């Protein structure tokens, strides 16, 4: 991957990539792996970008797909691990941001299903419902309803300070 490609095409979107990767990982090590894997996938798939959507939308979609694949792989690996090791792994939580409320919000987001995490992240990034629907591959109405439900769930988790 050339430095130019990384600097011009990935780095301007590193914020959203970081935010998404953080939502799907519990540890700093996993986060770094996910981030690197996403960058690599963007670089490897760049020739498939057809300009039917914005580059940024394409980056979101690819980042989400990549994270979902990695989560799935990790789940499969966990199934092959001894149970005590699995519990220790899942129990790890890291405080990654200076802002305590934000750390708490991330902990709540990590409690959501993988797809709900993707939806709420895009919503919080102020992506219009049409764009979210397009990225997730569902209808705009479905997204609107799901956002309301996800927000209610997050509110409950935050009010109960997560359980």
């Amino acid at each position, binding site marked *: 991957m*050339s430095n130019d490609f990384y600097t011009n095409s990935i780095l301007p979107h590193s914020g959203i990539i970081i935010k998404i990767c953080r939502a799907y990982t519990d540890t700093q090590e996993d986060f770094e792996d996910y*981030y690197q894997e996403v960058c*690599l996938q963007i670089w490897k798939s760049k020739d498939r970008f057809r300009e039917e959507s914005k580059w940024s939308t394409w980056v979101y979609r690819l980042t989400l797909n990549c994270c979902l694949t990695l989560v799935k792989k990790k789940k499969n690996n966990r199934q092959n691990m001894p149970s005590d090791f699995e519990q220790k792994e899942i129990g790890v939580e890291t405080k990654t941001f200076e802002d305590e409320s934000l750390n708490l919000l991330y902990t709540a987001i990590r409690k959501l299903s993988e797809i709900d995490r993707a939806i*709420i992240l895009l919503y919080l990034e102020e992506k219009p419902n049409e764009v979210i629907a397009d990225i997730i591959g569902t209808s705009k109405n479905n997204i609107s309803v799901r956002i309301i439900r996800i927000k209610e769930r997050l509110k409950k988790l*935050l009010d109960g300070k997560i359980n």
Partner: protein
Amino acid sequence: MEKSIESIWKEGFVNDDKLIAPKVNDLYNQKSIDLVSKFKKMYKINVIGIVVFSFIIVPVSYLVKIPYMGIMMFFLFNLIIIVNRKTIYKLNKIDNTLNSYEYLISFKNWTDKLIDTNTKFSRFLYPYMFLTMFFGFWCGEIGGDVPGDIITNGFINEYPHTPLVFGFPLVFVGIMLLAMIFLAVVGAKIGKWDFNLGYGRIMRRLKTMIKDMEELKK
């Protein structure tokens, strides 16, 4: 008043510059380790399988009354195990402190040598297996009779002037030799096909990874 999730998000990320992207380097570190470990695991399972099979085949061949085949196969499989033990030793010698690219290149060199050894070995392996099975059948026992004797006697009765080589009709020896030469010629291809059947996927991934890494280096 409790803050909404939207405001927590906005305030938390008020300055996106604070988000520090991890350094993108050594992308393939874990991938290379995983790939080589997967290969090692598969390879060891295969060798263990051969060990188990070599010990099972002897009593089984006695039970089905083709003991020569069992004994010859036992020696063949144990020869394969000895060769493989040596190759595994060399695989474990690959320095894992090298960077990912060098590590994968060392691994690729090792697999190239393995394929080369396998190819050479296959030229001998398949004719030998054929010979083993032939003798197993020829010297075995079916209903108290030896199939080899029945066939030889029948053939001699039909063609009384046929010359014999070590008790075998010359035609049979000729056919066997031709079959063995054929297997020796195609053995290398069968060996490669057999290797690809088991490890083809890993080998393709290895090539793709090395290609990607070379492109990344540019």
